């Protein structure tokens, strides 16, 4: 288990502040955030590489705040590998290992047998990352800190190594904290996730919660939401006595009805492109509460999908529909369309 309480640290002028989070034992934690958000600094602080200026770190239930790096017993993989250039690949993997047999089985398990006789300088970026990962796994740590460990691997290798590492982690019920920019990686591996922004924790929860219900504009955009608007929310009077209120968002020239528990005031409205339906005429049977009259600006075809940019007044919306649907609706530039959005698809944060 990794428990962080009010954690603060410094890296030059950058400051990591007030990070409180828990990664349960045996869970896979994901750290998200833009470049410079403090993701690597967070891992380094947990590992003891950077001194803690406030707060505490508990590993396996023990306070390690003042403990030296080597006594924290965590495996650490840097994005840039940091393989020791004066050692062979085999010596790198075995550097911290206690058991040669375990090292050998690890090499075979991850398919690195052909690399061990090579020199470090002859390895590709992906191969270096694999060796750095094996070096960290060789001492069998029960806590693993990964800083974009698959970034340089080719797509096939990434999938293979990722699933093998997931199996390795489950077998040992190891706790992992993993920095990644890859949303698929975050969604497929993560049990819990946290979003860092300018050295602070801006949101935590399950990866799905972060993607579907982002707490900040930055998180929404990081998660790939194309339609994010800044504005103001007012609560409509509830006539049913339900705790879930109807919310009216106004901003950037658009008005949207949403539902939820937003208290009102300054807000961002987030609508995912795939949650916007396009129609030629209003449907009398539709239950969607947002029907916006617009004009098609551009249709970009991308495989089986079509990405349609629609101008609603001065506001641009992006919708994603299948190419078949776009053809069926006859969507072309300059055509009038209705952008249809359910109130539940409007996320207000």
């Amino acid at each position, binding site marked *: 288990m990794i428990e962080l309480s009010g954690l603060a640290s410094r890296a030059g002028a950058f400051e990591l502040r007030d990070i409180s989070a828990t990664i349960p034992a045996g869970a896979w934690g994901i750290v998200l955030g833009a470049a410079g958000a403090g993701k690597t600094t967070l891992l380094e602080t947990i590992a003891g590489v950077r001194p803690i200026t406030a707060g505490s770190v508990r590993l396996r239930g023990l306070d390690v705040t003042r403990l030296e790096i080597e006594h924290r017993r965590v495996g650490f993989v*840097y994005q*840039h590998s940091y393989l*020791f*250039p*004066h050692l062979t690949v085999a010596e790198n993997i075995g550097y911290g290992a206690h058991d040669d047999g375990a090292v050998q089985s690890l090499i075979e398990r991850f398919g690195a047998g052909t690399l061990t006789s090579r020199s470090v*300088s002859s390895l590709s970026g992906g191969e270096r990352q694999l060796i750095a990962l094996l070096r960290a796994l060789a*001492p069998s740590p029960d806590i693993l800190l990964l800083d974009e460990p698959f970034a340089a691997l080719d797509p096939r290798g990434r999938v293979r190594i990722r699933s093998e590492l997931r199996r390795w982690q489950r077998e040992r019920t190891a706790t992992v904290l993993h920095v990644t920019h890859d949303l698929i990686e975050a969604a497929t591996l993560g049990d819990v996730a946290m979003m860092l922004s300018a050295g602070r924790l801006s949101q935590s929860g399950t990866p799905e919660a972060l993607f579907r219900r982002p707490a900040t504009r930055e998180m929404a955009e990081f998660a790939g939401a194309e339609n994010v608007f800044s504005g103001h929310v007012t609560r409509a009077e509830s006539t049913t006595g339900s705790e879930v209120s109807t919310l009216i968002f106004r901003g950037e020239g658009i008005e949207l009805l949403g539902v939820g528990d937003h208290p009102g005031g300054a807000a961002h409205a987030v609508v995912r492109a795939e949650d916007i339906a396009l129609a030629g005429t209003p449907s009398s049977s539709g239950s969607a509460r947002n029907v916006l009259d617009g004009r098609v600006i551009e249709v970009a075809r991308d495989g089986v999908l079509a990405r349609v940019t629609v101008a609603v007044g001065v506001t641009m919306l992006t919708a994603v529909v299948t190419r078949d649907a776009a053809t069926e609706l006859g969507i072309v530039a300059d055509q009038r369309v209705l952008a249809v959005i359910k109130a539940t698809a409007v996320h207000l944060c």
Partner: protein
Amino acid sequence: MSARRAHRIAVVSVAVGAGVMLALLAVPVGVLVMRGGLSGLRQLGGDAELRRALLLTATTATGATLVTVLLGTPLAYLLARDRVPGGSVATALVELPLLIPHPVAGIALLLAFGRASPAGAALQRLGLSIVGSPAGIALAMLFVAAPLYISAARESIARVDRRYEDVARTLGDSPFMAARRVTLPLAGRGLVTAAVVMWARAVSEFGAIVILTYNPKVASVLSYDRFTAFGLDSALPVAAILVLLALVPLVVLRSLRSGISRLDQPS
């Protein structure tokens, strides 16, 4: 003036300037070796004093270098990793001997370790005399040349990304073991280069040694002694032999430098 003509004048000016600079450095050494080199080598066989001086020079320079490597490497490491309180003051102290005129360095050493000083008296009681002994020669060499080793070693160590050490420590190494297993091997060629430079500088030292220990004579003092006592012709062979001796570290340095650039590549 056309641009082409201006370019030609600039090229010629640079070439002439570089040639004059090179000649200023090479001609005196070349003339010395040509006039005294062969006779110096011939004299080696029959001149016992010269052989003794060369042996004394080599052994004291080697001793001073070994002591500096042993004591200076930890200091260079601490300075490179900013682990010395008041690091800039410590760095200035290390570099200070480079700026002091060498006879002044000799006088300072005489005051600090001469028979009249507390340290000199204490060493005397232990049977170790600094003035007029090989120990004094080695001390003078160390004082003037160790800063070269420490500064170069510090830069070599600083070039090794400290994250290598951090990784080693996550793999179980103590700070000492991480430095021994990772940082020092990665900085190794730089450290050897620094030691060779220091050795070469120690071999050529004269000013501090002549104040502290005129006798027994190292090669540089012998060369000066023969020049003042017997004139240029007597000093020439000794001087030429010293120049030839300086070629040894030069060759070592060139072979080491080709290896350093390979090790500096990030992994």
